[in-house]
């Protein structure tokens, strides 16, 4: 199961290395990682998605993260009401005969073509994991050349 953990950290050099090092040293896998500054520029937010079935490993990850001195808070969204989004860039074949099909797929999602040249287009899509999965499945039938994902970011309502 994938768990979204949001970590607020001191915005200092080396903090990302501490966190990445902790995951690699203890053999935990990071599925995705997104880092950026917050409203308070002295604080960064890292949204880490980890894939584990084992509750004790998830607990250990949270405890070990909390142990790092530069970490302010660790929030686990697993059992918390939250919204998460991911941005995906998708390069597709945009030949004349595919155009109509692509347009009709894109209309169903928060997705649009942001650049095209010749027979290639780049689609920008934003959504939760389900939406992105379905979009990629639909586009996959037409042939995807390349995708890049930002990793999830998440926010709790309260």
């Amino acid at each position: 199961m994938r768990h979204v953990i949001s970590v607020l950290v001191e915005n200092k050099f080396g903090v990302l290395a501490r966190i990445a090092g902790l995951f690699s040293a203890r053999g935990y896998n990071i599925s995705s990682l997104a880092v950026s500054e917050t409203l308070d520029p002295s604080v960064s937010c890292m949204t880490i998605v980890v894939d584990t079935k084992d509750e004790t490993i998830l607990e250990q990850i949270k405890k070990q993260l909390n142990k790092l001195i530069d970490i302010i808070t660790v929030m686990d969204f697993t059992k918390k009401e939250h919204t998460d989004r991911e941005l995906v860039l998708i390069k597709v074949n945009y030949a004349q005969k595919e155009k109509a099909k692509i347009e009709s797929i894109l209309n169903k999602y928060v997705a649009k073509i942001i650049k095209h040249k010749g027979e290639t287009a780049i689609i920008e899509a934003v959504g939760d994991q389900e939406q992105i999965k379905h979009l990629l499945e639909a586009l996959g039938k037409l042939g995807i050349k390349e995708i890049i994902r930002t990793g999830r970011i998440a926010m709790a309502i309260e």
Partner: protein
Amino acid sequence: MKLTGAKILTESLAREKVEVMFGYPGGVVLPIFDALYDSPIRFILPRHEQAAAHAADGYARATGKVGVCLATSGPGATNLVTGIATAYMDSVPMVAITGQVKTNLIGSDAFQEADITGITRPITKHNYLVKNVKDLAMTIKEAFYIARTGRPGPVLIDLPVDVVMQEAEFEYPENINIRTYNPTYQAHLGQVKKAAKLIKASKKPIVYVGGGVIIAGASGELSEFIRKTNIHVTTTLMGLGAFPQTDPLSLGMLGMHGTAYANHAIMESDLIIAIGARFDDRVTGRLDHFAPGAKIIHIDIDPSSVSKNVKVEVPIVGDAKDALAKLNKIIQPPDIEHWNGQIDAWKKKYPLAYKNDTQTIKPQYVVEQIYEATKGDAIICTEVGQNQMWAAQYYKFKKPRTWISSGGLGTMGYGFPAAIGAQIGCPEKTVFDIAGDGSIQMNIQELATVAVNKLPVKVAVLNNSCLGMVRQWQELFYKKRYSHTRFKSGCPDFVKMAQAYGIAGMMITKKEEVRKSIDEALKIDGPVFLNFIVEEEENVFPMVPAGEAINRMIEGMA
């Protein structure tokens, strides 16, 4: 007042009440050494940076104060690494200061450059690269605070040479506030009450004590708890000394080389009261077979230690001293007469023993004689391997901070420099390094340090002409294929070697000379090197083979 970074460093160390530091000079730390020239802080110059780190560690373990070591950039810093990792694994408060190349050269592969904050990130509690002299005083304050509070550990401060040469206004901060760091000391009363209830209801409880009790200074509270409940106590290797082994309720050490009765008792128990211990694999053996009928109460200051390896019924995060004090106020003794009778029967049936019927010297006998000659009051440092296990088994520790050994990392070469640190921290105490002929040669250069500083450290080498513990495993599990573990040739004449440093040396080959030589060594007001030629193929028993349940022991003679 404006001071250079180097001066700020020495002034700040003085404010932290640092009495002694262990270090080695080098290029980029020249400004620091220049400042040290005028500093009242005692400086010990070992002969290798690794020994500086171990000595700082030994000093910290013996005194409870923060140990401080210093090395130059690059190889100086990397030579500290084993010492820092050793301290990290055993939760030893230490501040390691390293020189670094100039800030504008960092990352350029400059001469003697190493990314020491990168290298030590997984083996320090925290580390710092100070890029601005204005941050230096606060960084030192934070480093000492982090090193000594919560679950203690080593903190490294990397100081570029230009930073220690620049000047800044010096004012040592009075207060500290790290928003991200706030260890829990107060044990939750509700949890303590739950624990008391479980204890009262238990039929077969056991107290399992680790080094955390020593770090917390909670031996008094532990003794009170045991007096009130009458529950037997077993300790980890790190917990030796937390509870007097001369007490009838002591079961000694448990685990891979623990006593049979401690292992049987914990395996059969219905309640484990774990205090400042972490259920390490050397203690639990095969985890899915460990103490199958036991519920667990776990007192620890480090939340990540709780429920890491075993499932815990009642976690109590907090200081062991506080938790035990609270527990002592409400505890009611369980009804365990029958259980205690069972444990006493195990004690009688499976005593810790060895065959002492030969004319050759048994290593266990040497340890016993050191125990008797020092009346159990010495500080015992050890190396790693058989020497360490025999010392742990046959020296009956009575007080905290008298046992100094690399438990978690298992660092050969640790004991001798650690003994130097312990002796400097406790000048009035008798300090022994119980060593093997393999381990002692890993930091043998420190003979110079004890000689120069006239430190009365007694080195007792249990010389079996081999790397005994590895040889033992080869004997038991690798069909006696002694691959590269015999030291038959190449071992120096230790007596001559000691004498070359101006140190008294003795070689002991006969059993009847053992006690005499120890008594004589104790009379000498200075370092002594005792080379005991012991039986080569003696093994450490009991022994739980790796990956077995801990009641499946290979017995020696019982």
